[in-house]
């Protein structure tokens, strides 16, 4: 038996405002995909280690060096909204 999805809760976690019509359709899609994924339960995997990454890499370090760049101005050039050298967003602190 596959999971029933609480689509409102998941949408909240994913920071998505779903329209009511979308919600129902997406919940149905997700449940059918999860029903398909459920075939993995056939496999015994208690003693199998997980693979999150196929390369045998561990911490990769490089020197932390200061380099000159004009990146700040170039990044801000295409900001949706800016004020001097900052990205501008709606007020966050209530009553401020």
């Amino acid at each position, binding site marked *: 038996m596959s*999971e029933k*999805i609480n*689509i409102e809760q*998941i*949408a909240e*976690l*994913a*920071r*998505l*405002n*779903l*329209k009511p019509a*979308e919600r129902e359709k*997406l919940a149905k*899609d*997700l449940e*059918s*995909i*999860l029903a*398909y*994924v459920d*075939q*993995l*339960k056939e*496999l015994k*995997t208690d003693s*199998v*280690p*997980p*693979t*999150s*990454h*196929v*390369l045998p*890499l561990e911490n*990769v370090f*490089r020197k932390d060096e200061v380099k000159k760049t004009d*990146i700040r101005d*170039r*990044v801000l*050039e*295409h*900001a*949706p*909204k800016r004020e001097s050298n900052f*990205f501008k*967003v*709606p*007020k*966050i602190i209530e009553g401020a």
Partner: protein
Amino acid sequence: MELFELTLKQAKELISKNPSKESELRNSLADRVKTLDPKVKAYVNFASSQKGSEGKGALSGIPISLKDNIVTDGWETTCASKILKGFVPPYDATVVRKLKQSGAYIFGKCNMDEFAFGSSCETSCYGPSHNPWNLDYVPGGSSGGSAAAVAGNLAIAALGSDTGGSIRQPASFCGVVGLKPTYGRVSRYGLIAFGSSLDQIGPITKTVEDSAILMNVLAGHDERDSTSADVPVPDYTSFIGKDVKGLKIGLPKEYFVKGLDPEVEKAVRQSVQVFQDLGATVVEVSLPHMKYAVAVYYIVAVAEASSNLGRFDGVEYGFRAESSNLKDMYFETRDQGFGAEAKRRILLGTFVLSAGYYDAYYLKGLKVRTLIKQDFDEALKKADIILGPTAPTPPFKIGEKMNDPLSMYLSDIYTISANLAGVPAISIPCGFSSKNLPIGLQLTAKPFEEGTLFRAASAYETATKWYEKKPKL
């Protein structure tokens, strides 16, 4: 022969003999795109008045087209998503920097499924691309624009990205050559991330040799990508034209099962005969967990995607839905900015990573991924190459699978496991269906043995010459 018909190798030879041909080539290609791309819709952005190349090197004067998820300094880069409309990156991806240093220049940006989420190019916010072999059919996806451009002689060569088949499946559908290199072989710095443990950039080209020429430029370690491998890069063109005598070709018995289109099966089995006639030997191998690959992928890839797409919130770049408070701005920006498939994957990824479900889904997926990787390790002990179809069917019609996500996902059933295992794989043309639509053959090798793929693929290509057949646009 028109200049837009040239392969990468021919274009290289032309310009090295006569550098003044560079602008002729550019104009020929630009005119072709202006005339025919309104039908194919392979491009989302192309510049007909390019000033051309800056560097000098192996690719001097060669125009290269890029999937629109590879960032390009000064060019809008959108991943075919409304949420990145207006994003003009202030830097080049490492592959772009390497192309420019070798003398190539960027010709245009190609259409794709939104954020590479799809197998048909239909989830693009710009609308679908069309298959040059029959405009009613999809070019495959997600690098569908790149593959359609190369197939339709609207590009000399292109780059795509492959997370579960997104280079190989469209190459198969469009009758061109598509390589997914070994995980870590090509830097992903500047590739807008989808599934970080799976993504690779690779070439989509008219011939196998063109693919090798491009890999000579693209491959190698990059300190800006901590997952790029510090493994020496051979001269890939040295594998072109070698024979395949004694090469061991593995046929997984799990490949030839229900769901495989009979015309595809026939074409693939005939290719086995071609390899045998060329002196290769055939052995049976087994990939017992292959049938679980799509299920694993739709846990692992969506989990990674939902994390990677967390950065799109309307604050720093791209689209923003203005609101009076910050939280509404985040929620509305994401709701309006992402398309249906992106939302589906973000939600699914969020679900499999959420408290209470992590072990049952995400951790389970990672464990089965280990089993799939072990299957490849074992099979590739017995064989130098694994051979099979790239896609279970020839191209399907535009609209045919859009309302059935699962059936769309299953069109990647033969390609997904190479990404899960990190091994390199190439799709090359191996025939046509009764509707005159291309069929692709997939070859897979051990990690970092792209050279073996080029050796086998070029021998097959020379023997069959499928690439000589072109769509009439």
